[in-house]
């Protein structure tokens, strides 16, 4: 009995920590959707690109040291911000005002490009390590153990949640961004530079993706498979609501825990793979009954 309880608790803890790391990636998605109404189907590829930038920089400079990690993170952030700015400018701005299908397809195309790039560049297709100066030994919390990298992911994720909640609630820019999200024309009439805020939203998504890329890349190793993490973003954001920062975190927690429980309890019966499957079933149920998620804003359509 006690052993079973311990098993359940360890599943819950690992699920929750992985879930918060999903939330970090989902946050990039939510930030863009919230401000610009654009769907980023390439979020996983963003994370992959950031991880490549981090891994290659760390390998080229100081290796697995604190200096290396700092340089790697800074370069990853710089690369992602530049990339997001460029993307917004070249691809997404011409698509403003076009059907939502166009933006979805453009990001799917972008995802294909990013996934195809590593094997044809000189960096090659083989998996690269992304060493951070932290130990590999699991930390014992008393009731469960957790790898340090996951703990780091949880801390970064919660920090981002705090920062972005504050940003949207209190800062001048955040309020302006909410205004842009709410009604672009009115925001424009109030003297807000809408295009600039679109670019800023993409840049923020780039920063979050860079942090997510460093952490996920360090945990799983850097190759094109890393982009598959992006597939987990959709259940997370649908559960939480596409435009809610807090929803991303809670959706992430739910997805992580469901995944971990499914893997722990169902896998022995159906022969594996429930981990990738359960969140999507949950998501379909959510879409049927509450399509705008737990915290998402309802859209009222007018002709």
């Amino acid at each position, binding site marked *: 009995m006690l052993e079973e309880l311990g098993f359940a608790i360890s599943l819950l803890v690992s699920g929750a920590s992985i879930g918060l790391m999903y939330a970090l990636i989902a946050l990039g998605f939510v930030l863009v959707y919230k401000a610009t109404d654009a769907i980023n189907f390439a979020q996983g590829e963003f994370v992959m690109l950031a991880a490549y930038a981090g891994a290659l920089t760390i390998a080229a400079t100081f290796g697995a040291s604190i200096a290396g990690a700092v340089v790697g993170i800074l370069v990853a952030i710089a690369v992602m911000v530049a990339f997001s700015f460029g993307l917004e400018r070249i691809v997404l701005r011409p698509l403003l005002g076009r059907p939502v299908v166009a933006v979805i397809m*453009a990001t799917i195309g972008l995802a294909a490009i990013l996934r195809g790039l590593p094997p044809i560049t000189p960096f090659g297709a083989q998996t690269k390590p992304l060493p951070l100066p932290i130990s590999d030994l699991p930390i014992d919390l008393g009731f469960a153990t957790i790898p340090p990298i996951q703990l780091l992911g949880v801390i970064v994720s919660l920090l981002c949640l705090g920062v972005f909640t504050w940003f949207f609630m209190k800062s001048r820019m955040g309020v302006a961004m909410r205004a842009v999200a709410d009604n672009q024309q009115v925001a424009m009439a109030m003297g807000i530079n809408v295009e600039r805020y679109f670019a800023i939203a993409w840049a923020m998504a780039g920063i979050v993706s860079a942090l997510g890329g460093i952490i996920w890349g360090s945990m799983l190793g850097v190759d094109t498979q890393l982009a598959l993490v992006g597939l987990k973003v959709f259940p997370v954001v649908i559960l939480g609501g596409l435009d809610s920062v807090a929803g991303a975190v809670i959706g992430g927690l739910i997805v992580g825990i469901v995944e971990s429980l499914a893997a722990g309890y169902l896998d022995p019966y159906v022969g594996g793979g429930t981990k990738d499957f359960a969140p999507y079933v949950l998501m379909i149920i959510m879409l049927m009954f509450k399509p705008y998620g737990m915290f998402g804003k309802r859209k009222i359509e007018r002709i």
Partner: protein
Amino acid sequence: MFHREAGNFKTTYDSDMALFPLPLAKWAAGFFLLVFTLIVPFSMHEYYLSVFIQIFIAIVGALGLNILVGYTGQISIGHAAFMSVGAYTAANLAVKLGLPFWLTLPAGGLMAAFIGAIVGIPSLRIKGTYLAIATLASQLIIEWIINHTPAISGGAAASIEVPRPSLFGYQLKSPRELYYFTLFFVVIAIVCTMNLVRSRIGRAFVAIRDQDIAAEIIGINIFRYKLLAFAISSFYAGVCGVLYTYYYSIANYEAFQIVVSIDYLAMIIIGGLGSVLGTILGAIFVTALPYAIREAVNLVGGYIWDTAALSAVAASMKLVIFGALIIFFLVVEPEGLARLWRNIRNYFRVWPFSY
């Protein structure tokens, strides 16, 4: 198709909506039919015939997707999953019950249509982004179910070997015979689609695409037509999957993964959303391009990449070029190759007296 407008006055709705508005269009269609039935199969090498077969199969699937995305405006990222439903249905019927292809083919299509209609149910409440994500989920869920149900997938490798189709006791084996087999179905698919989109159903689809609330107000039953669009589109996908299965004589889920869904989306976007001609052009382009890329990579790739990695390089190159083309067409020419063709045609229509 080709136009000469002088002296062509339409006095009835029937003539305005005719399948071939001009005699020239009829001749052109006849010409192409002649080329593809008599000249191509006897003048081409078998290697090129196999490319043609794949193009034909792709046209069937892409037409289905274009009915859904291009005409009805409901995005689907799960098209390949419906193909796999058709493929596995037909494969199981053909192997376990020994049914001939003229029964398994519609059965595969109907099964896919049924599953497609179920997947389409959420489209009544959600649209755009949410629908895209829902269809993505159905792609992953269908893939997982097929893969984890030995009764459907036929065991560990999730693949079923299927005998080639036989007609009146004669088994179609050579590429030329399979060429005619697929050509027959692609002609049917094209004619059906052209007729569908100019019918009452097709116009209801277009009304839903343009503004679904307005369509509902003018009396179109949204519930019925959205589900119908999903069912019809999935029927085409199912038939496409069955044709793949018979052509490769194996049903394997790896041929129907999410990448394939994206290939089909690329076909209709590059070709032109809401255009039958565009679908055909897009299917030709997207199916033939990997062959061209592979040739090019094999030709010059040895100087740049490791020779052992060339096939992986060609696959990645395909992804990059497809992605770039999707973005290029979306940004620069949203109406795709069909629009380019129309521009060329309009230029030559009054050429050389364009003023």
